């Protein structure tokens, strides 16, 4: 089976959805082929294949983009709208939060907004403070909108299929550093349910929970830890809201230790919700405090060295896991 990366995976998911459902449409800045099919080519080939009416490049006007998507969705379409970078949601928050997320509720279920909002983000490409933020916590704190962030191509495809099929608005977060992450994706890869985490690896001693590109770092940390004799259970959250409480709680109930790692600023981030939930659900069962890792309380710096320090590292994750083990060294664990 040939490997494909996340860019190809998302492209396939959108294309298959468009093929299957004529109501699926695409809009955003430069998304049509005439403009290159998106900055990194996610929507490349779609306008050629499905026509210019269904794949429309827009002016630089994110409120207009989101409004067009919301209105079309209310009238039965399933728009996949691109907001080029996640920071640009800041000029369209009203449309996303006050409208897309709330219309089903405000209308008592009469109007629904089945849209997908695709966004790229992530530090590490020298794009600095206004082009790199992970803002998933804002949307997770907003009732009525789902938030998804895949780490690999198979998940990207399966989750995008689900987002497009979903009857409610979904934010789909793409990390630029993860785009190249290639894996074998079966040609018939189907939808992956929203709200379900993936246990990437089972383990006994500590659960590491992550998503998006940071999950790749968590995997690397787990390898390091395994080499030291620590048995890691590795969870890729995949959907951040609603998150898979059951899977995470069951895992940490088993291991007794948890580390949560994400790219966004740690304070008031997604890790806080998970840690707060775990301490409540597993009071007395935890063997160590739940550790949260995220960026320090600062903006994404330009200077490359500083920028790397901004992002949670493999070592940060491994160290945090070790800290949860405390005196329970691998040797001690082995006999326990």
């Amino acid at each position, binding site marked *: 089976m040939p490997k494909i990366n996340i860019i190809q995976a998302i492209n396939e998911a959108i294309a298959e959805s468009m093929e299957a459902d004529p109501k699926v449409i695409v809009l955003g800045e430069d998304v049509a082929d005439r403009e290159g099919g998106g900055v990194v080519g996610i929507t490349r080939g779609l306008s050629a294949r499905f026509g210019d009416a269904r794949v429309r490049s827009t002016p630089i006007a994110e409120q*207009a983009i989101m409004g067009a998507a919301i*209105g079309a969705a209310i009238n039965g379409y399933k728009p996949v709208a691109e907001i080029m970078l996640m920071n640009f949601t800041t000029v369209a928050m009203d449309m996303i939060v006050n409208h897309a997320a709330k219309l089903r509720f405000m209308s*008592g279920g009469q*109007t629904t907004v089945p849209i997908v909002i695709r966004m790229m983000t992530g530090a590490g490409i020298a794009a600095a403070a206004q082009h790199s933020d992970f803002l998933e916590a804002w949307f997770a704190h907003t009732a009525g909108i789902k938030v998804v962030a895949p780490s690999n191509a198979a998940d990207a495809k399966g989750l995008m299929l689900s987002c497009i099929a979903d009857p409610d608005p979904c934010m789909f977060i793409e990390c630029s550093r993860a785009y190249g992450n290639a894996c074998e994706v079966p040609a018939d890869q189907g939808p992956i349910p929203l709200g379900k985490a993936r246990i990437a690896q089972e383990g006994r001693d500590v659960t590491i929970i992550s998503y998006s590109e940071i999950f790749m770092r968590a995997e690397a940390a787990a390898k390091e830890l395994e080499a030291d004799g620590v048995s890691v259970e590795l969870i890729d959250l995949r959907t951040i809201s609603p998150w898979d409480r059951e899977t995470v709680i069951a895992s940490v109930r088993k291991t007794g230790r948890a580390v949560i790692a994400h790219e966004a600023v740690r304070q008031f981030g997604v890790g806080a919700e998970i840690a707060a939930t775990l301490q409540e659900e597993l009071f007395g069962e935890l063997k160590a405090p739940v550790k949260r890792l995220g960026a320090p309380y600062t903006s994404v710096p330009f200077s490359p060295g500083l920028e790397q320090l901004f992002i949670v590292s493999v070592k940060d994750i491994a160290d945090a896991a070790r800290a949860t083990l405390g005196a329970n060294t691998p040797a001690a664990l082995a006999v326990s």
Partner: protein
Amino acid sequence: MATTGQGEGVNAAVPDAATQIEIYRRMSLIMQNDEASRKVVRSGRLMMPYYSPRGQEVIPSAVSVNLTNEDQICTIYRGIHDMLAKGVPLKDLWAEVAGRVTGTCKGKGGPMHITHPASGAILTTGIVGSSMPIANGLAWAHKLDGTRRVVIAYFGDGASNIGAFHESLNLASLWKLPVVFVCQNNRFGEHTRYENATSVDQISKRAVGYNMPGVTVDGNDPFAMYAAANEAINRARDGDGPTLIEAMTFRFFGHVFGDDDFYMTKEEKADAIAKDPVPAFRARLIADGVATEAQLADLEADLAKQIEEAIQYALASDLPSADELTRDVFAAETEAA
């Protein structure tokens, strides 16, 4: 291509007698409903922020007679007149305003978020400017569907200064969307006078910047309003794109119920009220022999009865049960984290 005129050119469409009466019926409905609303709010029987549309009756009435149920509108917090003119049933509307489960939105949206798709009333928003981007999307769907359905985006003069206005008019013109932007210029945004918020003397002039026809009309004149709306709606239906209509009007009861109008002069208010479009049109219909006094009195009495019945219906309806609080967040109720 952009023009700024008075909307009553030589080719102006003229409503026939039946349409004139229908416009009046909708105006009377709005006026009487407003009186009832203010009474109910004043009495404390209902608690809600009430944005009276009194004085602006002509605009949606003359627009909506050009529309079918298939056509759609997006309006704003001050939009009960737009909803009524579009045909939202009184009972459902009153029940919503009263927060009852029988309301259009099960009481969860309230007066600022009336939605009634069956009559084409799709969106009522509380965020200034936001009716326009969404109207574009509705219209885009109609265009993709290949139908001749049109969408009206209502908004106020104050809203013409916010970013969403600009983005929406540009996109609508660029994509030739079947949408008509109807600015109800009542000369104030909350307590701020038009000229203290808006740098141009006529909002319709902004149409120039979008290569879109723009027209300023007397929003209190049912004939001028009908003609302008008819032309714009036909243009949209024919696939020739959007129009910006600035309809000049006045709100008699300030921004929100309780507003004491300190920010306007007694004279300008008195002047505006002296031009009350509802009795004026009533008199004209009779003077022109389009309707008799008795006919209009019957029509009005019938509306009064319907309104009273709607209020009784609403107040007798159940409040939503507690489980409605977390229903309709997503399609599937189980998914909330």
